[in-house]
């Protein structure tokens, strides 16, 4: 019975996929949605016989998934989901492929259920910081769910960046774990031990709790570096587990950044969607002209209070233009830090006001997809 439903679901989903593509829609989630409606167990059925690799974390999911796809593709065809479609329906759409490998980016809240359904070969856990709190509620809540599910998945190899205490806690009871440390780094939300609730003792970027949670005990240690450098190494570790040769990536290949020519100006887009990704982006090189784009739709996070946890100090001396649906949240936040800006109605208007020949565009999630992709 399940088999018939699955077959019917796939036929219908493929039909929908083909016809929606005909109308210019990328058709990434609709087929999966239909499939799951008809055959709710489709993900677990389709995952059987495939080597499934899942990638999750607050920041770096999409670019790291692309890197893992490149690495695993050396072994054979790989099914993967398109940028950003990281919920169950995106996974279902990708798994309809007959490829022997599936490399999937999974949303943090959906990860436990996708692990349970796919019995993955490898799961890569990148980091957990504050993001979209209107639906995540609390970082610890997400980590608690991971902690429980990782212990259940006894066939899976977990590759975990334990410089993040929430990741270390998540895999604390997992059976097969490759704990990776890059020599530590401070965590913006790491004041409390997620395992025991004590005040966590940090020395520089390293933590040790009386309960034993620490990033000093690990199976693999690398030198410190940027997020994209770390994610490239983690992606290659995934490759190693499934038997693929390592690939070298440049930093920019793993950055969520896009270069585009607009009205004769060179625009460097960078995805900035929460305090951690903002801080990472603000550490990079910025043009004299900077455009900040802030929206607050569901995937951006409808609450923008977190802007106050970022220091925008480095924008002093730059010409700052702001647009987006929540432009005033941003303008007032940096105003209080002593940075004046110009708020404009649209991105096009912002571009025309750029004085130099190049501009850095730091952009929230939805705006990044609209403007940069």
């Amino acid at each position, binding site marked *: 019975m399940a088999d018939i439903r699955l077959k019917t679901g796939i036929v219908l989903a493929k039909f929908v996929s083909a016809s929606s593509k005909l109308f210019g829609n990328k058709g990434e989630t609709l087929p999966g949605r239909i499939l799951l409606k008809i055959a709710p167990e489709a993900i677990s059925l389709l995952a059987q016989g495939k080597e499934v690799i899942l990638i999750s974390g607050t920041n770096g999911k999409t670019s790291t998934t692309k890197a893992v796809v490149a690495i695993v593709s050396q072994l054979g065809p790989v099914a993967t989901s398109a940028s950003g479609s990281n919920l169950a329906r995106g996974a279902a759409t990708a798994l309809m492929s007959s490829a022997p490998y599936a490399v999937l980016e999974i949303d943090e809240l959906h990860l436990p259920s996708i692990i349970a359904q796919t019995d993955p070969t490898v799961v890569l856990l990148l980091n957990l910081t504050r993001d979209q709190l209107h639906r995540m*509620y609390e970082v610890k809540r997400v980590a608690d769910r991971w902690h429980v599910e990782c212990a259940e998945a006894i066939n899976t190899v977990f590759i975990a960046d334990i410089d993040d205490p929430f990741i270390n806690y998540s895999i604390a009871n997992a059976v097969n774990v490759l704990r990776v440390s890059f020599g530590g780094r401070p965590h913006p939300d790491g004041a409390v031990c997620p395992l025991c609730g004590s005040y966590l003792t940090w020395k520089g970027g390293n933590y040790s709790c009386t309960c034993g949670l620490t990033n000093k005990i690990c199976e693999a240690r690398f030198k410190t570096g940027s997020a994209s450098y770390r994610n490239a190494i983690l992606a290659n570790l995934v490759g190693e587990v499934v038997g693929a040769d390592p690939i070298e990536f440049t930093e920019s290949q793993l950055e969520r950044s896009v270069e585009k020519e607009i009205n004769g100006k060179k625009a460097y887009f960078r995805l900035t969607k929460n305090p951690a990704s903002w801080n990472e982006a603000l550490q990079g090189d910025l043009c004299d002209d900077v455009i900040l784009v802030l929206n607050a739709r569901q995937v951006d996070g409808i609450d923008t*209070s977190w802007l106050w*946890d970022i220091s925008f100090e480095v924008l002093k001396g730059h010409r700052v233009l702001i647009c987006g649906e929540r432009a005033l949240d941003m*303008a007032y936040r940096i105003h*209080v830090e002593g940075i004046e800006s110009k708020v404009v109605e649209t991105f096009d208007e912002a571009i025309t006001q750029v004085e130099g020949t190049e501009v850095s565009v730091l952009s929230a999630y939805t705006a990044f997809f609209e403007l940069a992709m």
Partner: protein
Amino acid sequence: MLEIIRIHNELLGTYGDRGNADVLKYRAHLGKVKARITDISYLDPLPDSGDIYLLGGAEDAAQLLSLNALRKGSILSRVAARGAVILAICAGFQIIGTKYVTRDQEIPGLGLLDITTTPGEKRLVGDIAVQSSLFDVPMTGFENHSSITTLGEGVEAFGRVMVGNGNGVAGLDGAMHQQVFGTYLHGPVLARNPEFADLLLERAIGKPLLSVDDELAHKYALWRRSVAKISY
């Protein structure tokens, strides 16, 4: 020098409430009042010299850690008694109450406000607007919590809820008594509502603030009110 004490921001800083101190300092400066922010971490003793004390929102374990640290020496009760201004948001609001109840324990609070907090059935998340007797205009913010806060006999709410949930009962948000203010409004609340920031500053210096003319702050507050979908 007006001293603004930001308490345990590493614990009570989950929802951007650190900005409340920044806005107070900024507006004090515009009103020609010298002010500084003192950040007090969990490991530091809480000074009793402050003029304004700020507590923000937190995750559960952090909330409990902060409360237990603040019990030492009952500094907050003492400074409240001498008239220091205290603003407590969300988890901070809960810990300065009589007690709060979690799924597995009942925790006595600092007792600055006669309020009791119990677990609610659902998470209360979204924009919130509150009409307070202190202001002519509604206060706006963002709430994200799952508790119900009940006021003791005769305790005045911070305001009446016009949009959202607030305390989750009786259509009220927050509580206030003398110089102590508690509310569920993040945002940060003082960034979105400069009138509230100025009121706290005036209460702290004991006299009216020089008229603060910050066009962007005003424009921002107006816009925030206009998008809060307030209906009277």
